[in-house]
C-alpha cells in the first residue's frame, strides 16, 4: 500500500520518464532495522573502534548475517547478545555488562557528580559562614586615591 502511494506520488512528481523505485537492499527492511539496532551494540572485533553495524569487514558482515538469521528464528535481542558474549566474551559488547569488574565504570559518573556536589555544598556553606575581608580605613583611603588617579589616566 505504502509502496503504491509512493509510486503514485513519484508519477505525479516526475512524469513517466522518471524511473522505477529501487528495491531495498534487504529482503525485509523492518527486520533489517532490528538487525542494525542489535549490530550497533556489538563490537567489530577485527576493526578499530567500530560496531558491526558500521564496519565493512567480512567478520562484521558475517556477524550481521548471524544476527539476522537468529532474529528470523524468533530469538530475542537478549538471546542474541548472550550468545555473542558466550562466544566472544564481554569484549564484544559496546555497552559493558554491569558486574564486579565494571562496578567502578558504571558507578563512577554518579560518584563523580556526588563528590562534586558535596564539595560544592561544603564550599557554599563555608562561603556563607566565612566573613568578608575587612579593609582598614587606611586601605580604603588608598584605594579611593588609586581609583581617582586611574580614572583620570583613562580619561586622558
Amino acid at each position, binding site marked *: 500500500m505504502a509502496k503504491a502511494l509512493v509510486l503514485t506520488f513519484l508519477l505525479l512528481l516526475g512524469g513517466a520518464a522518471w524511473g522505477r523505485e*529501487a528495491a531495498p537492499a534487504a529482503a525485509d527492511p523492518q527486520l533489517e532495522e532490528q538487525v542494525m539496532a542489535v549490530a550497533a551494540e556489538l*563490537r567489530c572485533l577485527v576493526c578499530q573502534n567500530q560496531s558491526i553495524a558500521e564496519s565493512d569487514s567480512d567478520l562484521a558482515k558475517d556477524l550481521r548475517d548471524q544476527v539476522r538469521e537468529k532474529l528470523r528464528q524468533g530469538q530475542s535481542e537478549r538471546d542474541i547478545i548472550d550468545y555473542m558474549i558466550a562466544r566472544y566474551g564481554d*569484549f564484544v*559488547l559496546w555497552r559493558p555488562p554491569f558486574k564486579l569488574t565494571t562496578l567502578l565504570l558504571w558507578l563512577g559518573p554518579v560518584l563523580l557528580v556526588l563528590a562534586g556536589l558535596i564539595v560544592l555544598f561544603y564550599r557554599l556553606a563555608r562561603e556563607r559562614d566565612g566573613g568578608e575581608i575587612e*579593609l582598614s580605613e587606611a586601605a580604603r583611603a588608598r584605594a579611593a586615591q*588609586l581609583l581617582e588617579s586611574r580614572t583620570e589616566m*583613562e580619561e586622558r
Partner: protein
Amino acid sequence: MVAELGQFALALAFAIALTQGVLPLAGAARGNPAWMSVGRTAALGQLVFLAIAFGLLTYAFVSSDFTVAYVASHSNSRLPLAYRIAGVWGGHEGSLLLWVLILACWMVAVTLFSRNLPEDMVARVLGVMGLVAAGFLAFMLFTSNPFDRLLPAPPDGRDLNPLLQDPGMILHPPMLYMGYVGFSVAFAFAIAALLSGQLDAAWARWSRPWTTVAWVFLTLGNALGSWWAYYELGWGGWWFWDPVENSSFMPWLLGTALIHSLAVTEKRGSFRSWTVLLAIVTFVLSLMGTFLVRSGVLTSVHAFATDPARGVFILALLALVSGGSLALFAWRAPQLQLRGGGFGALSRESLLLTNNVLLAAATGTVMLGTLYPLALDALGLGKVSVGSPYFDAVFVPIIAPALFLIGVGPIARWKQASLPELAVRLRWAFAASVVLALVLPFALGRWSPPASFGLALALWIAATSAVSVWDRLRQAGSGLSVWRRMTDPSPAFYGMALAHVGVAVLVAGVTLVTGYETRKDVRMETGDTVAIGGYVLRFEGVAKEPGPNYVAERATLRVMRSGRNVATLQPSRRSYFSQQKPMSEAAIDSGFTRDLYATLGDALNATTWLVRVQHKPFVNWIWGGALLMALGGLFAASDRRYRIAVRGLREEKYLAALRDRQVAPEIATRKIAPWTREAGNG
C-alpha cells in the same frame, strides 16, 4: 644530508630549551635580570631551529626522500604534493615536531604580547614553557626521531593512510595542536603564579585571553575532526565516542570549565586555587591527548609492550608534569591567602561553580570510559569495550543540567542573586522555550521525549541569551542613541552571548539530526529511483575515473524535488594502489536545514549497485554552532580591557578588594563606573 641537518637543528633546539627552562626560572627566583632576560632570546632561538627542522622534514617529504624512515612509512612517490606536505604531521614523530614548533610559536607570542607584564612573571612563564619543550624534544630525540635513516632505502614509500588524504585532515591536527599547546600558556601562567605567589586578579586577567584563544582553537579542531569523520568515514556519523575523539574532547570540556572559572577569578578574586588546579589538569589532559592518540596505546595497551622505551618515556613525562605541578600546587596553595570575594549560595559565582563541577564530572566520566578498558586489561581483569551506548547513557544526564545553567548564569548577579528576581526575568524565556519545544516536534513530523527535551534546552539557551542582551542594552541608559547603546557592552559580553547561542545551535543540531534522520539501503540499476526526506534520487549509472594514486568508480545520482533537478550526488569508491580494500567516498549535498548523504556500496552484478542514501536534518548546525562558539571566543579575547597596562600588583589587589566592599557611594557611582560596568559583563 638533509636528515642530519634536521637532527642537528633538533639537538640545538633541545639545548636552547634546556637553557630556557633553567636560567629564567633561576633568575626570577634570585632576582637576576640578566638571567631572566634569557627567556625571550631563547624562545626566538627555539622557534628558528624548530622551523628549520620542520622545513627540512617537509623538504624530505616533498622530494620523496625514502632514506628517511618516517617519510618512507608516511608518503609515496605518487602522493599529491598537498598530502606530501600534510604527511609531515600524518604520523607520531612528525606530529610531535609540529607540536613543539607550535609551542615555540606560542612562546614567541608570549614574548611579543607581554610587554606590560612584570619581567619576573614573563621569565617564569617562558621558563615553564621551556621545560615543557625540553621534555618533548628529549622524547623526540631519544625515542621518536623523525629524521631516523632507513638504509637501504625502499623503492617507494608505504603511502599516507588514505583516510588522511583529505583537506580536513590537513587542517585538523594543526588546529587541535594550537589548542593543546595554547593551554600550555595557561599552565605556565598558573605555575608562574604559584612560584611567585602572585595568584591574584591580575594573573587571571593576563591568562584569560591566552586561555580563550587556546580554547577557540581546540573548539575548531574538535569541530573539524567531527566534520571530517562525518564526510570521510562514509557512514554519516558525526561523533563516535572513539578514544581518539575523547582524548581531544576531555581538554576541551575542562578548558571550558577553566575559562569560566578564570572569569570569576578575574572579576571577583574567588576560586583562585580551583582555577590554578583546572589550568594544570587541562594541560595535563592536553599532553595525554597528544601522546595517547599518536602512540597507539589507545588501540591496545600492548603498544607499550612492543615499544617499551616510548611508553615508559611518555608515562615518565606525564608523571613529571602532573606530579611536579600538583606537588607545587599542594605546597604553595595553602601558603597563599586564597580567599576571594565572598558570595551567596545563589549568585553568579555559585552558578558558575556548579557549572564547573558538572563540566569536571563530565570530563571525569569521559576519562573513565576511555581509560577503563585499558586499565582493566593492564590489570589482567578481562577485556571490555566501552562505546557510544555507554557514553550516551552517562554523559547526557551530567551535561544537561550544565546546559540548563547556561541560561541562568549570565542573568544572575554577582555576589548575591535573588530567586524571585531571576524568576521574573526568566519567566518568558522559560515559557516560550517549553511551549515551542512541545509544539515543534509535531511540525517536524513526530513527537518524541528526547527531541522535545533537546529542543527545550536549545531554545532555553537561545531565549535567555536574548534576554541577557536585551536587559544589558536597556541598562545602558535611556538617553542614549541606539548605536551608543549597542556599543556600550564590552566585546567580552557579546562574545559570551554569541558563544552561548552557538551552544544552543549545536544542541539543536544534535537533537534534530539524532531524532529525525532517515536512511535507506537500496539496490540500484540505471534509472532506478529512491525517495527520501521529500527528495527523489535517480541513479544514472557508474563510471570509472582515474585519480593521482587510485582509480575510482563513481556513481551519479540526480536529486529531484517537486519535479525540479536540485542537485547531483557523485559517491565513489576508490581503490588506492597501496591498499587492499576500496575506500568509500561519500557524496553530500549540504544545506542549511538538511544534508543529503549518499554512499556507494558493493556492485552486486555488472549493472546493480548497493547504494545508501541518508537524509540528515540540521546536521550542519552542529558545526555551525561550534563555529559560533569559536567566534564568540575570539570576540571575547579581543576585548581591549586585556591590553590595558597593569600598573602594579598592589593597585590591582586594592581594586579587587574595592569591588568586594563597594566603597563609599559617591566614588562608586562617579569614579569606578567604567570598572563596575565591566564587572557586570561576564
